[in-house]
């Protein structure tokens, strides 16, 4: 059984159709890259998968790990093992990063019938992860994303992913805005998540991320549809030629 199966997905925002029949299957163990010009619907797809209000699915089905995803609330999807890494992580002033991490972990543990994580074990684990992301402990005690630089916000998303160990990570342009060193750190984080039991979807504009995290499949999303799929060579082709030729080919 596929981890994620999207069939003929149509979705609209404020009455305007943005996704126009998406089909995509992600199996455990696979890494998929989704590319496509600005405004083609990549973030919209992520938000629909995350169950955001205001994004109305008008047609199609999505199953995730055996669940009918469209019947689930956002938090239920998270607890079932989906993690959305945001293109633009929002600031939540006054809420300490460490507090959110703990609450998120405990929400998941509670659903699994486990006790709350004990503070000592938790702190130890978080400190290790923070160090692996080349971040300073001070970030844990700052407000969630509050005043973080663009790159810091993205590292923070990966940090959350590493802690929550999702079955499916949906990373929307996690590589945008990263300097060269940060790109490496983030890529290493993603590679650590890679595993036989996990699926990863990377939304990206650039080959440079895919140099570090080699995808099994590459899809081109254009005007709300996947117009072409292939292996990692498709990304190389896009990098070399741009979208024009492939778009013409597809139409």
């Amino acid at each position, binding site marked *: 059984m596929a981890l994620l199966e999207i069939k003929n997905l149509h979705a609209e925002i404020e009455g305007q159709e943005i996704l126009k029949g998406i089909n995509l299957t992600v199996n455990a163990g696979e890494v998929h890259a989704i590319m496509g010009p600005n405004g083609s619907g990549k973030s919209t797809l992520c*938000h629909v998968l995350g169950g955001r209000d205001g994004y109305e699915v008008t047609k199609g089905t999505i199953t995730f790990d055996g669940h009918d995803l469209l019947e689930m609330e956002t938090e239920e999807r998270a607890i079932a093992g989906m993690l959305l890494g945001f293109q633009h992580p*929002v600031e939540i002033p006054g*809420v300490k990063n460490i507090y959110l991490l703990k609450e998120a972990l405990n929400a998941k543990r509670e659903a699994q019938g486990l006790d709350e994580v004990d503070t000592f074990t938790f702190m130890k684990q978080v400190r290790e992860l923070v160090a692996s992301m080349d971040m300073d402990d001070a970030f844990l005690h700052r407000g969630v994303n509050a005043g973080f630089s663009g790159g810091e916000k993205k590292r923070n998303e990966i940090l959350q992913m590493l802690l929550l160990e999702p079955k499916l990570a949906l990373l929307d342009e996690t590589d945008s805005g990263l300097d060269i060193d940060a790109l490496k750190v983030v890529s290493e984080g993603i590679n650590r998540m890679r595993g036989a039991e996990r699926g990863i979807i990377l939304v990206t504009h650039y080959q440079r991320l895919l140099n570090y995290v080699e995808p099994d499949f590459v899809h081109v999303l254009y005007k709300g549809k996947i117009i072409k799929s292939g292996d990692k060579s498709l990304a190389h082709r896009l990098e070399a030629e741009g979208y024009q030729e492939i778009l013409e080919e597809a139409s």
Partner: protein
Amino acid sequence: MTETQELEQLVKREYKYGFTTDIEQEIIPPGLDEDVVRMISAKKNEPEFMLDWRLSAFRHWQTMTEPEWAHVHYPKIDYQALSYYAAPKSQEELDADAPESLDDVDPKLLETYEKLGIPLHERAVLAGVKGANVAVDAVFDSVSVTTTFKDKLAEAGVIFCSFSEAVENHPELIKQYLGTVVPKGDNYFAALNSAVFSDGSFVYVPKGVKCPMELSTYFRINAKNTGQFERTLIIAEEGASVSYLEGCTAPQRDENQLHAAVVELVALDDAEIKYSTVQNWYPGDEEGKGGIFNFVTKRGDARGDRSKITWTQVEAGSAITWKYPSCILRGDDSVGEFYSVAVGNNYQQIDSGTKMIHLGKRTRSTIVSKGISAGQAENAYRGLVHIGKTASHARNFTQCDSLLIGDQCGAHTFPYVEAKNSTAQVEHEATTSKVSDDQMFYLRSRGLSEEDAMNMVVSGFCKDVFNELPMEFAVEAQALLAVSLEGSVG
């Protein structure tokens, strides 16, 4: 359903303290005239000077009119329809004195406070349960039912007792300080309180003494159709310090009930008073029916040099809140602080803020106000920073933030600044924000329920104020906030 509609559903609260205690009470008939004032004074066995003080307040009150400048609306109060004194009967039999020990207290009363989570058994407190190391004075309707840890405090020289006991046992202190911060004719509600106040708490911390524990008073309105008028007086002599907390709840009733309290604080040289309030009077139902009218005058006099007064308040209840805990910074280098979280939901109306009156040299004040509005609530911050001619090099910093939940509530700020001295430094920052769909989606996508997500955003918004609460109560305040914004998930 849109996120906004869901948020609105989410903030529908349920009031957990709305039960009534079925206890025999002595309530005097409704109505207010000089005879009533005399009757109250007589019931308390008060000395002559107190009766005179009450009567002159009453006469003054009769010449005054109810203020209308606040950003609140309510039907006219019929002061003749209220009863001005209610006491649990068993209490009455004890000659209106506070009981000597808990054994004299009606078990039903103790039960009431247990239900509210306030332990009045010293043994329970000592056993290390919730509220450890906090001395409690419990005021039920018009009278104080018990004060815990009196002996331990007395060892340190601290007096902590009901106001009635203070009048009886320490009349010289009452004479010296009563009405020196909030004069009996200060404003309409303060004058009314001065005439008919029934009980309250009294704290006296002598020179050089750091009060060894947190002090707290829990006010409970129970009787129907009665007004509650308590009066609190806290005196910290030279170099003394004390931290005091008041909490309040009331049963759920369809009619509005009037609560008009007065609090006076006096801090002499180098003294420090920290006064924290967690106000959770019944706010009325979702349609705005019932609830407490909370018209309160609180003022601290930083009389001595280098003295410090801090007001911290979490205002979650009441149908109407009209309250401006203020500081008169009289001593040189004295400091005034005001930290406030005011939450309004459904049809609650809040007009609250502070006055910082700078008179001494190099006086400093800080105001941090966090207003949260949900439902159809109206939440106004009203603040005055006055820098007098004599207050050279005075400084004020004001931060005034509003958070809106949904789009039918209102937030207003009325900051006034009067600087009569050109060396003054006054800074004001204000923001208005909404709990955004982005924030809610972000947190929910991390596995938090809508309620938890909302509480997280709101408590993050209030963090600067919660940090100022005594440790024991910060948790309580956070929980109260969660309850206030609790409701069915859309």
